């Protein structure tokens, strides 16, 4: 698998807990601020790109430009300093910012022309575009704001889980537990129900006992959960916000 974005980078650079990219984004330390923005962009660029495509009905090329310009503007204007976690979730804040940004598209275009030196962010739009083909929503004005919100929520979850899966892969490789990840990949990440192997099938394939399959999967799921939670924590500014987001992420409230 390839890295989607050159600035999304490997995820094992930050402390697993307590570090909040949202807070660090307004740090006075430039290096800290940069790391924080990279983390936020890695988690949000795909959902926001797809959101612009879906909600605003922008073409592939326009959506690329707007996504690039939006994040460049976010860095340049230090807009995240205005984010107040007690008033809204980061996702809501970013969505409102994007809506505002796209609505002022003409002005933004002018600003882009003026700002030739604006930071260029390397993002893999081709991957995002091919993922969009899976989305079961139409493009453009027919998408209601509520539906677009739901779409953004789901895409954010997809992005966050995707990053967590990648980090789990690296983690298992470092811990010499490649088989654990491979079992997780074959069993939990298999798209099609019909192609999903049984525990017995996996045990036969890898020459291990069925109980080992159970234990290895339990290990991988536990680590996946830990990593996903740590990533979520990076995206929240307070304990309370983190808990609310985690409840939503785990689907606790909807059960």
């Amino acid at each position, binding site marked *: 698998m390839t890295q989607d974005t050159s600035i999304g980078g490997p995820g094992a650079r930050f402390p697993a807990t307590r570090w909040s990219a949202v807070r660090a984004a307004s740090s006075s330390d430039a290096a800290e601020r940069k790391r924080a923005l990279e983390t936020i962009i890695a988690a949000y660029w795909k959902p926001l790109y797809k959101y612009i495509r879906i909600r605003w009905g922008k073409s592939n090329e326009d959506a690329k430009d707007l996504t690039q310009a939006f994040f460049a503007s976010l860095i340049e204007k230090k807009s995240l300093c205005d984010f107040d976690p007690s008033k809204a979730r980061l996702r809501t804040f970013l969505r409102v910012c994007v809506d505002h940004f796209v609505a002022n598209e003409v002005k933004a275009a002018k600003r882009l022309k003026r700002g030739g030196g604006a930071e260029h962010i390397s993002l893999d739009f081709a991957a995002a575009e091919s993922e969009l083909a*899976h989305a079961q929503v139409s493009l453009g004005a027919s998408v209601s704001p509520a539906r677009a919100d739901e779409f953004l929520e789901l895409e954010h979850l997809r992005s966050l889980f995707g990053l967590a899966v990648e980090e789990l892969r690296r983690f298992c490789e470092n811990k010499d537990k490649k088989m654990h990840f491979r079992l997780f990949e074959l069993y939990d990440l298999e798209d099609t129900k019909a192609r999903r192997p049984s525990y017995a099938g996996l045990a036969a394939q890898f020459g291990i006992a069925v109980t080992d399959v159970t234990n290895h999967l339990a290990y991988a*799921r536990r680590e996946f959960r830990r990593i996903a939670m740590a990533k979520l924590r990076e995206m929240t500014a307070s*304990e309370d916000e983190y808990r609310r987001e985690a409840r939503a992420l785990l689907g606790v409230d909807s059960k």
Partner: protein
Amino acid sequence: MNWLSDEVISRLQAASALPDLSGTRYRLVKRAGSGGMGVVYLAEDTILGRHVALKVLDLPDTSGELAVRLLREASILATLEHPGIVPVHDAGTLADGRAFYAMKFVEGTRLDHLDAQKETLFDRLRIFMRICETVSFAHARGVLHRDLTPGNIMIGSFGEVLVMDWGVAKILRSPSKRAVDSLPNQTTTAGNDALPAAVSQTAYGTVLGTVGYMSPEQARGEIDSLDLRSDIFSLGAILQFLFTQLSSETQSPPLSAIAKKAMSPDRAHRYESCSALGQDIGQYLDGLPVSAYPETIFTKLSRWGSKYRVAIVLVLTYLLVRTLLLLGYRH
């Protein structure tokens, strides 16, 4: 990075939400419900071969605050051995870092889900008296519940009445405090490294409880000054809930007066104990005067007449016959 389908996302969500019971004696059966800070699962105790309820924190708890609260709830339950309180079997931390405790699995109906058509006022008041007995026991052991609502009362399939959800309970005095402090470090199933030893205190101004059932002083966040009369207010609200669900014909002024007294805004005017409240309900059920409802002479006569109706009828019949005989004799 591979694209994760909606189905894979749902699967990962479910896998992440389920507790990791590896290394424990429990096997997950199904999710049974959820509370304020945890999810309750039906699990099988593989050693004893019985079903238990596992209450597990539904979130990772980086500050340790929620784990302390959950384990504190378990330790309070463990110190309150009473037929009206669910017994706790075990407590600790799972391999995924989430705190849990195991308790008896109770099947039944919540008080707020009782069928108004099936349960008579008499049945409901008998249930209420059992609740009063349980809360009175907890008060005697120095524990306030602080969140008594119909949703936190369970009626078991054999008619047992259980007071649940002691998650925000307050310890008033300390015969059991040592046990509360030390339990998290003593009893674990899958390791206790992450268990905090200290018992958290609720900050002044914190509002805990349920609107409509919490006392005015509780709603104002006067945590330090709460006493058992706060629970008595909640019991009054439960009593009111129980009889207002029934038709207006079954409602009576003495019952309304009992609920009103229990729910007095000034706690000095409430019942001084749960036993006193339960006693008034008992008096009502026996057709006797209740302390909350001063009777007029007509009410007294009416109740007296109702109680000795047969005797009065017999005496009146006797007098009538005697009078008729006397009149007949004179003629």
